[in-house]
Each structure stands twice: as structure tokens, then as C-alpha cells.
């Protein structure tokens, strides 16, 4: 089977073309760098099926971000049968720069001139025939979105691939050509594939290339001494980049006819002027964010309820006669009111959908309960509380996550997100991050899982790891019930403060912890220059409904898969150990104190003493520990656990659904004697500790090595433990604040000294770090790896070692 690679600039429409050709549903966005890993699909309309590989976007073959390395390695080492170079026709000059480099590889190339419809709409013209003549490779005009010209593209691509092709270069007329030629002959003599490409990169003294062929570097250095260009001197890198662009401008102006616009401002410019306004840019962004969260999470849309709009509306509740049937009884509780919410205000879209799923899942649970009236108690318990309860508690968050995603997708597709990164960059620079990191962080308020996936657009690996680590500190939707329930309990029982202020304060503490953590990481383990911020700002585009729906479906599928695997398994396990004693005796809910879970909880409990919910609590104190543990599976579990265990302690049923768990919290507080600082510490701990299973699994997939994943887990535990301890101790004995200030001062002093090279703690810590098992992900692919310079595993990589030996 023939293999075609799709290569091109970021945001030039590769993924759209890939989806159109293969009928796939890969995610597309108007944000440079949406495709972060290569994807494969099949095209079937040719005499033989073609494997299409969608590569991450690149501006050049000197890769700059980690995902660009993926593209370069594939093109050079996997020998595709043809490269389809997709080129954004609205931005021809810069796009063709990559084409001039791709041409230097010994692989057939076809240029797909995408977005030709937009060029024509602007009144511009591109002479495809002339362009083809000048570039020396076939050029086909297409529109990936409207699926125009695709068959011709593939047919001609197939034709070219059968013919084969020898590398050519646009640098042929430059004075450097004979040096390139010499290098090429030398490399060919060594049996190197794609000799022309490597020769050019060698003359540029590309870091990857110099490492691979140290013998030839000398030749270039020698030549450099005698060569002197008028403008550039002996700066070959500049000469070559300049020569490429000169060639393009020369021939591009022949092929391209630009229509002179009457007015200087396009529609895009006008929108842009408002959205990135010098004064209003940030306020506009904050308002947009507020409305997105408002539409997703609010139970009082537009604050109509708070303004008293519904005070005089007669409530029409559909009363149903209860006929003893449990399902009907359940349904009778479902009213228009509980669905759309008229009493306190109109619900937002997110909440309405949330309720819809909740009612549906409740109906299923009730039906199962009815169907299983004769089954043994443990089986109904397992099925309803264990399996269904666990699954539904997670699935019920799906609608809100999808709605949140929809809004973010629209903003992303339109090109606005790239502008926000632009606006906020200055602020993020202070924390040692680039403006691009803002997007995953803000998404963290909704759900950590998609937020972590989004970090792939960050250019710097250290920046990425640091961002993934602090994402859980941006308190997600599932953590909100913990905040509201406990702050509600505090206000009712102790009469302290105001529930809203406590909740809001916890959010602020989370953000502050994130910022401090990032600064500390960037000063110690995650060191490195502030990542540069050189980013293309894509033109504003109307979001495409098709791509939006595909994206949402993709996300929903992913989420449901997770719910049915990892979350399902863990809830069943938790159910078992909370309902069986050490002697395998089944325990009803009321005897949870004798369960395995209680036993383990009691054992671990002393560890939490500095946090205020450890040994100082009375005999039932282990429930807080258990809530923390169940929260590791899904944060929704924390309040659910309070509900179950609170009921056991109080000896009465507590319905968590109706009052959001406040009464359960009150039971827990009175039974255990926990203090206010202890409760706040408990919230803080839950908020910043290891997030839910789904987020942990995502972090594992997104982090580069197993080692960094283990370090991340340790970081979460340590950070949350320290934060909660500080809150508890300072809250209980205010003067301890001075001790903490002193400790922090010492830490900051030590870091400064270390960074100035006075102390040598790094050696000590790296020894400890070496003890962590290293499950290196790259070992599998290292045999085919050609990018040792940008690769951090060069000490473990066999290829790098042999290459070095060869050179010496």
C-alpha cells in the first residue's frame, strides 16, 4: 500500500483535507497547532488504497516545537511515497517557504493550493500553471472545506508518486551551491539518504545535523573562513533563508495578481480593532469568559431570579397521583420547575442539560431498583450504588462539559483564542510562561482533562509540564460541590462569614497556589528561558458547524469511554471495600464503621493530623480521610461519601441531592468535632491534591516520560499537603504565620543561592531523582530517531551514542 504524507504550515487546513479525504473525524480548529500527533487514514478512490498520514503543522524543517519534530522525523525517516504539501493560498509567500525545503527531499511532491475560494472572494488571482512551472512540482487548486478539486489532487498525486522524483533545490543559483554540492557528494559517499536535504541543513549548521555528521561540519567551517557575502558576511543560515524567500517573491509576483482593495480595512480588521483594543481588550475577554461560565453553570440565567422577575409568576406544578409504583413516584417529583427552574430563576443551558441527564439516569436507577426487588441485598447495592451510582455521578457532568467545550470551540475556531493569548502574554511572561498557556488554564475551571490535552500547543516541554501540573489548581466543576457544601455547613453551624466569600476565596487560593507553583518550578526543576512568543495570528473565520459537531462528538466519546472503564472499575472496588468487613462479611450501610475502608482510613488518619482532620478528631474522624480517598476517583465522590457516611453516623437518611450536602456536612462536623480551619484545610487539600482518575490518566498520557508523571503525582501530594497544613496551622494559631514566613524566606534564599551557584544541592537532588523508575517512552521509537539535539534522552538513546562514536 502506498503511503502519502500531508505536510504544511500550521493552520493551513491539513486536518480538514485529511478529514475530507478519509471521512475521518479528527479535530480541526483555528489555532495554529491543533494537530499535535500524526494520524493515519485511508483513501480508497484510486486503483490501490492509499494510507494518508496527517502530520503536525510546521513552518520549516528546522523543528522548533516538540510536535514539529514528529513531522520532520516522519518525512525523513519513514520514506513516504508522496508528500502532499498543503499550501494556504491566502498566505502564499510564507507557505511556499516550507515547499522550497520539502523539495530537497528525494520524495515526489504535489502542492495542494488550499482555500482558493477565499483568494477568489478577495478578488485576487493565482496562476496555478505558472506557479507549477516555477516550482517544478505539480500544483492543484483545491478547497478542502468545500471538497473541491480533491479527486484531481489525488489522481495527480498518484501519477507523480509512480514517476518518482529526485531532490531539487531553489538555492541552485546561489554562491553557496558548490559548497552544498560538495557536502552532498561527501554525504552520498557515506551512504546517507536524502543527501541534498542534509547537505543544505549542514551548510546552515543546523544543530541536529551538525551532531549527526561532525566530520562534514569541518568542511563547512573551513569554507566559512574564506567566504564573505556583502550583506551577511559568512552567516550561512541567513543567506539560505534569504535566498529561499527571494526566490519565492520573484516567482510569486509573476503568478499572483493582487487585487487592490478600495478600503484599507477588511471586516476582520474591524472586529479585531474592538476585540484587541488597547483598553477594552482585557475587559471584553473577562466579560466573554463570565458569560461562558454563566451559560454553562448558572442556575439563575441573566440573574432574572435575583431581580425578582419570577416572584409573581404562579407556579404550575404538574401533580401526579402516586399509585404505589416507584417509577411513577419518581417521575412525579420531576416537574417543570426542577427542569428549567422558575422559582429561583431560569437555568442555563448547561444546567438544563445536566438536569435532563440526571432525570434520565435517576429513572434508570429507579427502574433497576424496581426490577430487582427480589434480588439479594448485596447485589442491588453493588449494581445501584456501586455500578450505576458511580457511572451516573460522572456521566451527569458530561452535558456541562460539552456545553463548555462548545463555547471554547467556537472561540477557538473563530481565531479569537489566538488573540487572547496575544493580549495576556505580558502577564504570563512574569510567571515564566508564554501567552499560549492561558488557554489550558482557563479550561481547567471547567474540567482538567481537556485542559491537559490542550497543553500540546505549547512550544516548550518544560512549560508544558509545569502547566499540566498546575491545571488541577484551577478548581474544576466537580470540585464546586465540595466548596458549596462545606462553606454552607460552616456558615450554618459556626455562623462564620458568608458562603459565597468562602467559595470565592477558595478559588483565589487555588489560582494563587498555581502561580506560586509555576514560579517555583521555573526557578528550580523546570528551568529554562521564558519561552519565546512568536505566533501566527490566524485570520478571523466563521466557525464551521460540521467541524464543531465533529469536535464535540469526539470529546463526548472520549469522556464516555473513560467513564465506562477506569471510573467504573474504581467505583466498584470502593463499593466492595466499604461494604465488606475484613472477614468477608457483607455490611449494610449503617455498619460502614466496620468495613475494610474504615480500617484503612483509620490507619492513614494520623497522617492528616497537621491538616486538622487527622488524629485530633473523634472516633468517626476517618470519614474525612475516606472522602479524600474516594475523591481521588472522582471529586464528586467527596460529597457523595459525606452523604452515605453522614447518614450512617447520624442514623438517619440524608438526601444529598436536595440541599447539596450541607446537612451531611453538619452531621459530620458535630460528630467529629472538626474545626473551621480544619474544614478549610480539607477543601484546600481536596482542591489541590491528586485530581480525579480521568485527569490522572490524561496527565500520564500527556507527560513525556513516566518519570515526570511520577514526579507530578508527588508534586500534587506535597503541594496540597503543605497548603492545607499552612491553612490549618495559621487558622488555628495565627502567630504561626511568622514561622511560615521565615521558612519561605529561607526557601527563597536557598533557591537564589543555588541559582547563583553558591550551593550545590542539585547534585543531591538529582541522585534522588535517579532513583525514580524510568519508563522511557521514547525507547521504542529511538531506533528511527533522527533528532538527537532536541531530544532529552540522548544519554539513553542507542542511536545517538553510535552516531557520536562514528563521528569520532
Amino acid at each position, binding site marked *: 500500500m502506498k503511503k502519502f504524507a500531508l505536510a504544511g504550515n500550521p493552520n493551513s487546513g491539513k486536518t480538514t483535507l485529511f478529514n475530507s479525504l478519509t471521512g475521518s473525524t479528527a479535530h480541526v480548529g483555528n489555532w495554529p497547532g491543533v494537530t499535535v500527533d500524526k494520524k493515519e487514514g485511508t483513501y480508497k478512490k484510486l486503483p490501490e488504497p492509499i494510507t494518508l498520514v496527517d502530520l503536525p503543522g510546521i*513552518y*520549516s524543517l*528546522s523543528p*522548533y516545537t516538540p510536535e514539529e519534530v514528529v513531522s520532520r522525523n516522519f518525512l525523513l525517516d519513514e520514506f513516504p511515497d508522496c508528500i502532499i504539501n498543503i499550501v494556504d493560498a*491566502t*498566505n*502564499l*509567500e*510564507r507557505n511556499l*517557504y516550507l515547499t522550497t525545503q520539502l523539495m530537497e527531499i528525494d520524495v515526489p511532491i504535489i502542492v495542494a493550493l488550499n482555500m482558493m475560494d477565499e483568494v477568489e472572494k478577495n478578488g485576487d488571482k493565482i496562476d496555478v500553471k505558472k506557479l507549477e512551472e516555477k516550482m517544478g512540482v505539480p500544483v492543484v487548486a483545491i478547497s478542502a472545506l468545500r471538497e473541491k478539486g480533491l479527486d484531481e489532487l489525488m489522481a495527480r498525486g498518484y501519477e507523480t508518486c509512480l514517476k518518482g522524483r529526485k531532490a531539487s533545490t531553489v538555492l541552485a543559483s546561489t554562491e553557496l551551491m558548490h559548497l552544498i554540492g560538495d557536502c552532498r557528494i561527501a554525504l552520498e559517499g557515506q551512504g546517507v539518504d536524502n543527501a541534498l536535504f542534509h547537505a543544505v541543513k549542514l551548510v546552515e549548521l543546523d544543530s541536529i545535523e551538525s551532531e549527526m555528521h561532525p566530520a562534514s561540519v569541518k568542511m563547512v567551517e573551513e569554507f566559512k573562513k574564506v567566504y564573505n557575502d556583502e*550583506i*551577511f558576511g559568512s552567516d550561512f*543560515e*541567513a543567506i539560505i*533563508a*534569504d535566498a529561499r*524567500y*527571494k526566490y519565492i517573491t520573484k516567482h510569486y509576483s509573476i503568478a499572483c495578481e493582487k487585487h487592490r482593495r478600495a478600503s484599507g480595512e477588511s471586516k476582520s480588521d474591524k472586529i479585531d480593532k474592538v476585540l*484587541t*483594543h*488597547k*483598553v477594552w*481588550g*482585557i475587559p471584553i475577554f473577562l466579560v466573554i469568559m463570565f458569560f461562558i461560565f454563566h451559560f454553562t453553570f448558572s442556575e439563575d440565567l441573566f440573574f432574572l431570579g435575583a431581580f425578582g422577575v419570577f416572584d409573581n409568576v404562579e407556579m404550575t406544578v404538574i401533580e401526579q397521583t402516586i399509585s404505589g409504583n416507584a417509577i411513577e413516584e419518581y417521575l412525579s417529583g420531576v416537574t417543570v420547575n426542577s427542569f428549567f427552574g422558575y422559582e429561583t430563576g431560569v437555568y442555563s443551558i448547561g444546567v438544563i442539560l445536566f438536569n435532563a441527564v440526571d432525570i434520565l439516569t435517576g429513572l434508570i436507577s429507579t427502574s433497576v431498583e424496581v426490577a430487582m426487588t427480589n434480588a439479594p441485598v448485596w447485589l442491588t447495592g453493588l449494581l445501584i450504588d456501586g455500578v450505576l451510582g458511580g457511572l451516573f455521578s460522572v456521566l451527569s457532568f458530561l452535558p456541562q462539559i460539552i456545553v463548555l467545550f462548545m463555547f471554547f470551540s467556537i472561540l477557538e475556531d473563530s481565531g479569537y483564542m489566538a488573540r487572547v493569548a*496575544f*493580549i495576556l*502574554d*505580558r*502577564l504570563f*511572561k512574569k510567571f515564566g510562561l508564554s*501567552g499560549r498557556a492561558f488557554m489550558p488554564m482557563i479550561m481547567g475551571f471547567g474540567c482538567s482533562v481537556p485542559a491537559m490535552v490542550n497543553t500540546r500547543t505549547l512550544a516548550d516541554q518544560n512549560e508544558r509540564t509545569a502547566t499540566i501540573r498546575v491545571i488541577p489548581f484551577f478548581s474544576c466543576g466537580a470540585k464546586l460541590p465540595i466548596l458549596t457544601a462545606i462553606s454552607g455547613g460552616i456558615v450554618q453551624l459556626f455562623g462564620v462569614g458568608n458562603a459565597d466569600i468562602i467559595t470565592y476565596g477558595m478559588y483565589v487560593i487555588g489560582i494563587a497556589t498555581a502561580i506560586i507553583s509555576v514560579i517555583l518550578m521555573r526557578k528550580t526543576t523546570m528551568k529554562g528561558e521564558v519561552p*519565546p*512568543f*512568536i*505566533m*501566527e*495570528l490566524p*485570520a478571523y473565520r466563521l466557525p464551521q458547524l460540521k467541524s464543531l459537531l465533529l469536535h464535540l462528538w469526539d470529546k463526548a466519546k472520549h469522556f464516555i469511554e473513560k467513564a465506562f472503564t477506569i471510573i467504573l472499575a474504581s467505583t466498584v472496588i470502593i463499593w466492595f471495600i466499604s461494604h465488606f468487613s475484613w472477614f468477608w462479611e457483607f455490611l449494610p450501610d449503617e455498619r460502614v464503621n466496620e468495613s475494610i475502608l474504615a480500617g484503612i482510613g483509620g490507619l492513614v488518619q494520623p497522617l492528616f493530623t497537621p491538616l486538622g482532620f487527622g488524629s485530633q478528631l473523634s472516633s468517626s474522624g476517618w470519614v474525612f480521610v475516606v472522602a479524600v480517598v474516594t475523591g481521588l476517583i472522582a471529586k464528586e465522590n467527596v460529597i457523595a461519601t459525606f452523604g452515605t457516611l453522614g447518614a450512617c453516623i447520624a442514623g438517619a437518611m440524608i438526601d444529598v441531592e436536595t440541599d447539596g450536602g450541607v446537612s451531611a456536612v453538619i452531621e459530620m462536623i458535630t460528630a467529629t468535632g472538626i474545626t473551621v480551619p480544619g474544614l478549610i484545610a480539607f477543601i484546600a487539600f481536596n482542591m489541590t491534591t491528586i485530581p480525579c482518575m480521568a485527569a490522572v490518566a490524561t496527565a500520564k498520557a500527556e507527560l513525556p516520560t513516566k518519570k515526570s508523571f511520577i514526579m507530578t503525582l508527588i508534586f500534587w501530594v506535597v503541594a496540597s499537603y503543605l497548603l492545607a497544613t499552612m491553612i490549618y496551622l495559621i487558622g488555628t494559631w495565627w502567630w504561626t504565620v511568622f514561622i511560615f514566613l521565615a521558612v519561605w524566606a529561607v526557601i527563597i534564599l536557598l533557591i537564589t543561592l543555588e541559582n547563583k551557584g553558591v550551593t550545590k544541592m542539585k547534585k543531591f537532588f538529582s541522585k534522588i531523582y535517579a532513583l525514580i523508575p524510568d519508563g522511557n517512552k521514547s525507547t521504542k521509537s529511538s531506533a528511527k530517531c533522527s533528532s538527537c539535539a532536541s531530544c532529552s534522552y540522548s544519554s539513553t538513546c542507542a542511536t545517538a551514542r553510535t552516531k557520536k562514536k562514528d563521528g569520532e
Partner: protein
Amino acid sequence: MIFKKGSKKAIRSNLEKKLSEFEIGERGIVKMVNGEGRIRRRLFDMGITPGTEIYLRKKTPLGDPMEVMLRGYELTLRKNEAETVEMEMIR
């Protein structure tokens, strides 16, 4: 000699300046890209090569990253990256 030096300086401040010193709405031609390593390479790859015309479209509310137009597209870069780009202004 002294007079000559002074006049040279005067000419420089008039026409030649760094991209980071540009005001909104000014345009110029790239003379040279200084700096080194990855960032310089990236600037070349994005089309900032000698002879390119660049137009400063806007600066952010906080002043730092700036947005420029070149080769028919919009690019954003920071002040310290723009500092490496020597320009000659077009009036």
C-alpha cells in the same frame, strides 16, 4: 571627526531603528536580524528576512507583545524578540 560621528547618529535615529522601537502604524524594511539560535532561526522561518517590509499594526493593552503584518499575514512577537530586528523606516 567628532562632527561626522554626530551626524551619523542623527541619521540612524531618523531612519534606522529596531523593530521594537517602532510606533503603531509605522512601516519599514528589515536590514538585519541579530540575536542567535532558535529564536533567530524561527524569525527567519516566519519570513522576517532582510528586505521584507513590516508594518506594525498594534501593541497589546499591556504594551509588550506586538502585532506586525508581513508577507500578507499577521504575526505576533515580543519586545525582546523584536529588539533583534534592525529596520529601516519607510516614511
